[in-house]
Every structure is written in C-alpha cells, then in structure tokens.
C-alpha cells in the first residue's frame, strides 16, 4: 500500500524529520566525547572533528531535501508526532514536527547554508584558534555550532508555540555561547564576554514579550498547537479583538529581540565579537531570521489585527532605514555588515508586517545566501590581513618598517586595508557578487527579493515604501564604500600589502554561496509562469501567499537609485581620490572623505545615533543606580542592618532578656526560691525542738500522754 502511494503521488519521507534534530545532536555528542582525543592523537584531528560536524549538518540538509521532495507529491505536508512532552489537564503539548512548505524552506536554507559555513569554519577556525592562542577550543566551536543547528531545527520544525520557544531559547543560548567564544579576549579582556551578556540580556527582554504572548495564547485558545490556534483565530478575533492585538504585539517584542529590530537591535553589532562563521551563520543567515519566521508562521493571527500589522511594518521599515544610515559611518568591516543585516532584517519584518509573507520569506532566503557570503568573505579578508600581519612581524626587514606597536593592529578596520583585490582574488570576486546582490542590482538574488518587498509596499504602504527605498539607497552606498575601501586603491598598511588568499576549504563554500547569490532570484521571478516560491508557500499560507507582481516603475526606480547611489559612492571613495585623501598627514585629515561634506552628521552616524549611550543614560544607569539603591540602602542598610539586626534581632534579644530576667528569674524562680526559703526558715524554727537530750523527748512523750489522757477524761 505504501508502495502504491509512493508510486501514485511521490515518495514520503516525512517520518524522517526527527533526524534533522538527531543528526546534529549525534555530531555534537561525538565531538564532545571523542573530539579531544581525536585532536590529540591525529595530525589531521581538526579536519576530522570539523568533518564530523559538517557531515552531521550535511545529513540534516539531505533530510531537508527529502522533505522537500516528499512535499512535491504531498504539498499539504504532515505533522509528525514523536513523543508526548507535557500533559497537564486538558493541555497537551507533544514533541511533534511540522512539515509544510514554510518550515521546509527554513530547513533547506538553514541546513544548506549551515553546511557550507561548517565547512568554511574548518579552515577559518584552524587559523583563528592559533591567532587567539588556544587550539583546544577548536572542538568546542563545532560542538556549539552543531548544538545551534539542532536548536534551530527544533525552532523551525515545531508544531506548536512551546516547541518553537524551546528552539528559540536554544538558539539564543548558542548565540550567547558563540559570541562569548573568546570570552577572555576583547577590550580589557572582558569585551567579548560583555558582548555575549548584552546579547543575552537584550534577548531576554524580547523573550519576555514572547512568553507573554504564549501565556495569552494559552489563556485564549487553551492550546499551543498551530493548526488549532489558526482555526479558532477568526472566531476569537471577532469576540475579543483586543486580546489578539495584545498577543501579536507581544510577539512583536519577541521579534525585535531575536531579529534585532528597533529598539532591541543593539546587541547584534556587539555580537560581532564572535568568530566570523558564527556571525555568518547565527547573526546574519539563520537565527536572526527566526523572528521573521515567527511572524510568517503566525500569519493567520497577524492578518486579523491590522493595528499589529501596522506596528510590525513600522518597526521593520524604521529599523531598515536607521541601521542602513548607521552602516555608512562604520569603519569595522564586520560592523558595517552587522548594521546591514539589521537593515535587511528590517526589510523582511516590514514585508511580513505588510502581509507580503512570500516576499519576506523570499528575501529571508536570498539574504541568507548573500549575507552569509559577505560575512564569510569578510572573515577571509580579516584572516588574509592577519596572515599578512603575521608575515610582517616575523620578517626582520619588514618589522623595522612597522610603526607603533604591532599589537595595536586591528585587522577588522577597513582603514587598514586597501588594494586587497590583487592579493585575494577569489575573495574579492565573491565579495563583489555579495555586495551587488545586497545593493539590489539586477539580475542578482537581492534585487528580486528586495524589489518584491518594495513592489508590495508601494501598493498599500506608501510611507513604508519610501522608508525602505531610502534604506535601499543607503545600502548601495555603504556597500560601494566598503568594497572600495577594502579592495581598491593601494594597500594602506604593510599587513594589507602582504595579505594572502585563504585556503580552498574556505573559498569553495564562498564560491557556492556566490553562485546561490547570483541565481537565488530564480526561486521566485515575478513574472507570470514563474512565482515558484509563492506557489510553494501557498500550500501552507493559503490565499495569504499572494504572488508578488512585477511593478516595472518600482523596479526601474530602485535600480536607478541604487546605481546613482553607487555612483555617488564611487565619486566619494574612488581609489585615486581616497589615496590622495589618505596621503595627507593623519592629524589634519578627517577620518572619512564623507565628513568633508556632511560634517557633524557623520559623527552622528559613526556614533550610531548614540543609541547605546542613550540606553545607558536612560535605562541602564538609572537601573544600575536603582539596583545599587535597592541593594545598598533598601536591602543592606534598611532590611539587613536596620530591620533584621535592629528590629528583629534586637527585639528578640529584648524579649528574651525580658522573659529570662524579669519573668523567669524574677518571677518564677523567685517564687519557688522564696517557697524554699520559707520552708527552710520554718524547718530551722522547728529544728530547735530537736535538742538531742533524751530526757527532753521523754518529757514530750509524757506531756503528750498526759494531754491525750486529759482529753479522753475531760471530753
């Protein structure tokens, strides 16, 4: 019967879906228990450990592909129950995996991009652990990475909000662990640990919103199951629209935390403290898109509450513009990409907010390709520079030319680069492809997905369209600036001059990602007869997955604007001009050519609108002052010193003294002692009768006899 079914409507591999979580877990367990031994005993230990991790993720990708194949025959998908998890009263939360077109899209690109990044990381971490001086952490890196993939798979394949939450927290934990991977490095030896802490704390605020939403969902629907909730949602919305608004807005708070949206985006730039493959995998391609996935997954809830949709769109569009402008003023190659990521996430959030779920998910996928590509290439650039720096330091002739302290060299500062296109050809070309894709130049992937968002926005949300278009203009500008500063002109430092290309284990994944960035747009060309991605998602989202139309005017306008922006960028930063600018004495020239034109505005951008400082002065410092006050004054001085020591201990001592001295000693003891004294006195009195003279006693007896006889006679 199974065979017949398989023949009639394609094969079914849905039951394999739990393996998506199992494979990475098996991989991490192997590395956890045997990785240290492998690293010690074998010369190729790092390759083996890295391969185990990569194969684990690769197998996950294979399972994801099998799911996709199965879905082609059975597009309605399936819920695959694995085990009971929580059963309390009528609430039952199973471990069940949701296989439908939406989750499989996530599975495919998370495991696919994840595999490439794992392979890249074998090469990257090989050098990174040596630069940072602790090769034994190589194994730990891959354990964490596999754990991340497992958690991410739980997040995207859960069939209820609680499983999603488990994954949500799991990826948050891995993000924390990997940002703080070099926890003993960074500014003052604690910078990375602080960055990890910041990510953790900021995400907790978002998770608080998510939890409120989850509790409200249970209160309203008495279940966490996606299907049941979405079925009941219209009914509930009719009865109680406010509650649904509350749920969706609380979910938005969760989204702003995890997907780094305003106002909780501040953790993502600091998260660049983690190794670059982490930035690519977690903080660009996969984890940060969890928020977008959450909104898309809850599409049925959001479409019922236009107010919530408005706020999601506003947050997304505002973040897109804000982060894009900040990226213009950054000098750290990874910080530029981090703000770019925030900005692009803003595009996706705005898209799913507008109800353009297909466009949002489409951009999510293409963005995963080109942003992972950009991050990985930037990692290649950074290591190329570090190799150059290493070479210079160990060459006695060159070392003399080094000015200042060798340890001050920052391999991530774009001002230390320049001219890398000759030394690092492959990296340059893939970086260029990624940048063009990001800038939205047709026909690369970024153009199609971004344009679909803009086209959808232009129809109903004109204000969002304007914000996003301006953000796109800035995107093209900062990417031009970055490319020109990093790869063109003459090398500005000795390290850049001696930079070396990365090994193939790193460049091959880059080339694959570059190919995906070029051709990713084919997933969903906005022309009749294509729309593959929209049709694919239709099976899950129903009529919510409307296919984006191609609006020639919008496409033309955004392309022209992007080209113009690139032109302006080229005019400002073109190699000869920048060299001229750079050759001026350091004291007299501004830090960036742009400063000559916009002056103080550049300071605003460079300092990220002082948002961190604002948070410090508005929230953190008062909060710390409040906690100090609560700890010192309320808890220690009032509660401990005064209340406990004075009131309770003092009062108790007073009471016990009263009881012991006054009541016990003064009352009870005195009474019984007095009684005893009285008896003693009386006894002393009586004692005198006992003279010891026998004749006395005889006289007493005699008198007694006389008295008794007298009494008997006289009565």
């Amino acid at each position, binding site marked *: 019967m199974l065979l017949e079914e398989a023949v009639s409507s394609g094969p079914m591999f849905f039951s394999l879906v739990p393996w998506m979580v199992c494979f990475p877990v098996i991989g991490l367990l192997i590395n956890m228990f045997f990785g240290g031994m492998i690293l010690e005993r074998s010369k190729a230990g790092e390759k083996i450990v890295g391969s185990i991790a990569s194969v684990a993720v690769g197998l996950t990708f294979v399972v994801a592909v099998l799911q996709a194949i199965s879905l082609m025959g059975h597009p309605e998908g399936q819920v695959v129950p694995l085990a009971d998890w929580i059963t309390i009263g009528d609430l039952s939360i199973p471990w069940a995996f949701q296989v439908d077109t939406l989750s499989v899209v996530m599975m495919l690109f998370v495991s696919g991009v994840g595999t490439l990044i794992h392979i890249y990381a074998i090469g990257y971490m090989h050098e990174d652990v040596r630069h940072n001086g602790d090769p034994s952490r190589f194994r730990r890196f891959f354990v964490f990475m596999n754990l991340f993939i497992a958690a991410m798979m739980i997040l995207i394949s859960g069939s209820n909000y609680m499983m999603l939450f488990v994954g949500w927290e799991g990826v948050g934990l891995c993000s924390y662990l990997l940002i703080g991977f070099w926890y003993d490095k960074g500014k003052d030896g604690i910078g990375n640990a602080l960055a990890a802490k910041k990510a953790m704390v900021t995400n907790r605020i978002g998770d608080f919103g998510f939890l409120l939403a989850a509790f409200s969902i249970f209160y309203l629907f008495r279940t966490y199951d996606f299907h049941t909730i979405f079925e009941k949602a219209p009914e509930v919305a009719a009865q109680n629209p406010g509650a649904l608004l509350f749920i969706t807005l609380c979910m938005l708070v969760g989204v702003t935390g995890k997907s780094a949206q305003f106002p909780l985006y501040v953790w993502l730039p600091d998260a660049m403290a983690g190794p670059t493959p982490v930035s690519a995998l977690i903080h660009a391609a996969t984890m940060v898109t969890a928020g977008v996935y959450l909104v898309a997954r809850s599409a049925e809830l959001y479409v019922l509450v236009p107010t919530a949709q408005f706020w999601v769109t506003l947050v997304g569009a505002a973040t897109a513009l804000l982060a894009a402008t900040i990226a213009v003023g950054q000098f750290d190659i990874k910080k530029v990409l981090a703000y770019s990521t925030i900005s692009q996430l803003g595009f996706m959030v705005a898209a799913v907010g507008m109800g353009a779920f297909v466009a949002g998910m489409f951009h999510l996928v293409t963005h995963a390709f080109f942003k992972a590509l950009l991050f990985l290439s930037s990692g290649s650039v950074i290591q190329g520079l570090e190799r150059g720096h290493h070479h210079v330091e160990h060459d006695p002739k060159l070392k003399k030319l080094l000015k200042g302290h060798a340890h001050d060299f920052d391999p991530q500062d774009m001002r230390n680069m320049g001219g890398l296109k000759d030394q690092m050809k492959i990296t340059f070309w893939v970086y260029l492809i990624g940048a063009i894709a990001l800038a939205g130049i047709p026909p690369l992937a970024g153009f199609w997905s971004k344009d679909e968002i803009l086209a959808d926005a232009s129809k109903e949300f004109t204000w969002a369209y304007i914000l996003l278009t301006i953000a796109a203009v800035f995107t093209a500008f900062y990417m031009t600036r970055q490319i020109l500063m990093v790869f063109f002109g003459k090398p500005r430092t000795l390290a850049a001059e001696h930079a070396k290309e990365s090994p193939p284990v790193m460049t091959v994944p880059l080339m694959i990602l570059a190919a995906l960035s070029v051709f990713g747009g084919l997933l969903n060309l906005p022309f009749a007869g294509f729309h593959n991605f929209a049709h694919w998602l239709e099976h899950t989202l129903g009529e919510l997955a409307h296919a984006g139309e191609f609006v020639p005017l919008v496409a033309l306008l955004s392309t022209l604007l992007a080209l113009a922006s690139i032109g302006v960028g080229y005019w400002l930063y073109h190699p000869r001009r920048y060299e001229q600018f750079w050759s001026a004495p350091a004291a007299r020239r501004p830090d960036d050519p742009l400063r000559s034109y916009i002056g103080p505005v550049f300071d605003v951008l460079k300092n990220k609108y002082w948002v961190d400082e604002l948070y410090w002065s508005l929230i953190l410092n008062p909060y710390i002052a409040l906690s100090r006050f609560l700890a010192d004054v309320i808890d220690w001085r009032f509660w401990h010193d005064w209340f406990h020591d004075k009131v309770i201990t003092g009062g108790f001592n007073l009471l016990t003294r009263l009881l012991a001295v006054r009541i016990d000693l003064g009352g009870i003891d005195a009474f019984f002692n007095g009684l005893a004294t009285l008896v003693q006195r009386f006894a002393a009195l*009586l004692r005198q009768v006992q003279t*010891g*003279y*026998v*004749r006395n006693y005889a006289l007493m007896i005699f008198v007694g006899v006389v008295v008794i006889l007298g009494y008997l006679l006289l009565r």
Partner: protein
Amino acid sequence: MVPIQYYTALAVTLFILGAVGVLIRRNAIIIFMSIELMLNSANLAFVAFARVREALDGQVFVFFIMAVAAAEVAVGLALIVAIFRTKHNIDIDQMNSLQG
C-alpha cells in the same frame, strides 16, 4: 482483802517515781531502773485488777511484760556498754549528737 484503791495508789506512786526518775536523772542505768519501776507499777495494776475482776488475762499480760522487760534490759544494757566504750561515760545528756 486489801481494797483495790491501795493497789492502785501504790502503782500510781511507783509509776510517778519511775517517770520522774526517767525525766530528771542523767545516769543511763538509773533511767533503766526507773523504766523497770514503771513497768512493774503497770504489772502491779494488771495483777490487782485481774484479781478484782477474777479474770486471768491480766495475769497473763504480766508474764508477757516481764519477758519483754527482761529482753529490753538485755538490749538496753548492751547499748549502754557500747556507749560507754565509745564515750567512756553514760551520762544521757552527752548523747545529743542527733540534735537538729
């Protein structure tokens, strides 16, 4: 026949003599003798009343009292000897170590 009053008077006199002797004398042997005197005054009274009532139980009592008195003298004299051995004295007022 001698009237009972005379016997009684004699017995009382003897008893008073004995009692006074016990109370005022300090020599232990004299006190013993006084006790014997009182016992015998009681014996005399018993015998006299037994005669008057023409019943024998009073006479029987006297035999018992004489036996007890003999035993008591034996014990008493032994005590006096023991006291004398320790104190070299039989003054009854010296035996006051049990005073309160």
